């Protein structure tokens, strides 16, 4: 990988342009296992996923203007920035989650980390919300929350408290901790996500100021309480928990006494 990497730091790519380059050809051949690519260096790009609701569906708790800017500009910029970086980066070709782990580099993040993580974080964030969300979960999710927090009210307060303890830009998460096999609320700075620690994210809340400033100005607390009371999608949480249970054994199997 190192040999091909050095060959990459040449001219910037021009996706629409025709640039037959012998040296790049060789590196691309190695990458694509023999297929020749003559014209564009970057074959595939990460794309901007679409929130599963209309731009104004989250009103009045999150305005159409905010979703428009947050998704259409910020999230889009992270995607574009990442693709631009990957044109000349040895990290090309991973799945997004793999890329995040690679670029996190055990706490010494590479330049691609911020863009990659923010692309993932924002996609996860849009899906964490739904119109007419909030309220409280049911069934297995509620049981697990009551088991790990004592009550749903405790969880809600813990979530709000964690948000107030985050100083600066960052995210608040409900995660399923892999080793402890418990749900927990954590907050992370800037673009860091629990993926870096090997935990499974279940809910995320964007606490960068761009996420709430147009709607709430400096009143961060109202934004957080509106999120948890009116926006969070417990349907999505249920799906995520179901998937997480494929990786984490949450209960003890009951072994019948013979």
């Amino acid at each position, binding site marked *: 990988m190192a040999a091909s990497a050095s060959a990459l730091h040449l001219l910037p790519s021009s996706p629409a342009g025709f640039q037959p380059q012998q040296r790049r050809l060789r590196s691309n051949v190695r990458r694509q296992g023999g297929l020749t690519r003559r014209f564009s260096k970057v074959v595939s790009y990460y794309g901007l996923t679409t929130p599963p609701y209309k731009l104004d569906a989250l009103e009045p708790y999150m305005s159409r203007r905010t979703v428009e800017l947050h998704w259409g500009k910020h999230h889009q910029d992270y995607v574009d920035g990442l693709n631009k970086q990957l044109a000349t980066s040895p990290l090309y070709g991973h799945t997004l989650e793999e890329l995040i782990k690679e670029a996190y580099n055990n706490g010494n993040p590479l330049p691609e980390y*911020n863009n990659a993580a923010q692309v993932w974080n924002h996609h996860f964030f849009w899906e964490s919300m739904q119109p007419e969300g909030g309220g409280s979960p049911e069934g297995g999710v509620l049981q697990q929350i009551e088991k790990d927090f004592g009550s749903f009210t405790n969880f809600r307060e813990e979530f709000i408290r964690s948000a107030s303890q985050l*100083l600066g830009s960052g995210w608040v998460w409900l995660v399923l901790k892999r080793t402890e096999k418990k749900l927990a609320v954590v907050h992370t700075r*800037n*673009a860091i996500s629990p993926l870096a620690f090997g935990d499974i994210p279940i809910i995320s809340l964007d606490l*960068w*100021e*761009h996420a709430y*400033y147009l709607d709430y100005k*400096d009143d961060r607390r109202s934004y957080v309480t509106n999120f948890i009371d009116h926006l969070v999608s417990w349907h999505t949480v249920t799906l995520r928990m179901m998937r997480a249970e494929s990786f984490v054994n949450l209960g003890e199997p009951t072994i019948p006494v013979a």
Partner: protein
Amino acid sequence: MALRTLASKKTLSLALGGGARPLAAAAAARGVATTVSLPDLPYDFGALEPAISGEIMRLHHQKHHATYVANYNKALEQLDAAVSKGDASAVVQLQGAIKFNGGGHVNHSIFWKNLKPISEGGGEPPHGKLGWAIDEHFGSFEALVKKMNAEGAALQGSGWVWLALDKEAKKLSVETTPNQDPLVTKGASFVPLLGIDVWEHAYYLQYKNVKPDYLNNIWKVMNWKYAGEVYENVHA
């Protein structure tokens, strides 16, 4: 609006003027830092338009900076209680809040002085010693502006970009600090000449996600006179 100097410098000294609160007086007697207060803006909220909107200035000063002041004072009270109880882990626990809110107060107090309405000389490039020093260290005034804008744009998350003077090495440099860390966290001998707040709250209502536009425009209201005075004081 009356120009009041940083109350913190006065209140941190043991010689408190009249009207000191009992707690503050007691704390001062013990040598622990006392309370700070929100400094007045040396200009009206709308005076920096069109570079920075009045709405932003009002929120930034009356809400954000005021919150840092209030939370810093609260943290100091709690620190005082923890120190007198000898509760070392509580003291350590409070450091985050003190750094964040105290830093926020320090940084914003400098920031208001860094800005000046265009009608009062804001935006006028530096002359004299500071002007020459900038040419020496960065090549040209334009090069410095370009560097600070680049660093500000590249800063991930929230933070500040500074024109710093290393008073020992007598050198200028461009530094960035994350969140509300004051410039001294980069080096004890650093003196801030100019700081630009690149937290989103500093520009979002007006410039939305286009941080580079904010950075380009803030130079129109930059108070180089203040920077020059700080520079000359250090070299006096």
